[in-house]
């Protein structure tokens, strides 16, 4: 029961990761790409949750916690970079 749903979860979440990569590649502006990066970080947290279930090693939850913190800091930094105009970007 649980093995089957873990396999299905891996498949669905990989599909979501693929769709986010599509937006990361074709995103017309820099903030769109930042949104895609944020989504990829959230999906990676979900990936870590599924892997914790399938491997039984609870130490991976620390990784998920640190990843959530880092993704938030990256989003704040990107927003500041975009607002203050720290480089060329496509509108």
């Amino acid at each position, binding site marked *: 029961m649980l093995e089957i749903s873990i396999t299905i979860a891996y498949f669905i979440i990989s599909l979501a990761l693929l769709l986010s990569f599509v937006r990361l590649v074709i995103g017309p502006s820099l*903030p769109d790409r930042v949104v895609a990066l944020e*989504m990829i970080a959230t999906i990676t947290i*979900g990936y870590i949750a599924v892997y914790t279930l399938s491997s039984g090693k609870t130490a991976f*939850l620390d990784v998920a916690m640190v990843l959530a913190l880092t993704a938030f800091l990256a989003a704040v930094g990107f927003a500041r970079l975009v607002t203050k105009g720290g480089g060329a970007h496509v509108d």
Partner: protein
Amino acid sequence: MTEILVSLFLLIGCGFMLIAALGLVRMPDLPMRLHATTKAGALGAGLMVIAVGLYFFGDVGVAARSAAIIIFIVLTAPIAAHLIGRAGYFVGVPMWSETVKDELKGQYDTHEQVLLSPAKGDKDAEEQSDRS
């Protein structure tokens, strides 16, 4: 019983994650994309982490870490979305061509990033906006 509950939370969380990714690809506009990813993505990740906490039920360390992850996601996702949307609006990312109303248009000085609407003394604020 526990396995059924864990599978249910895991699959519902995955579904919300997929919906968020679909919205990220299909929505026509930066604020709409933010709307899709922030709400559905945070809910999906939270449900999946709840599934982990249920699977290791009784382990206090896992429960505490799961609760910390969920609280952190729920606290930081709206802040990050607000910052990105604000930056995108100031940079001038084009909105959807069928957008009905833009309430913020003309309310902000996009260079100084301060609100133009005066609290009191209309003349001073108008002079300032004329000067800039």
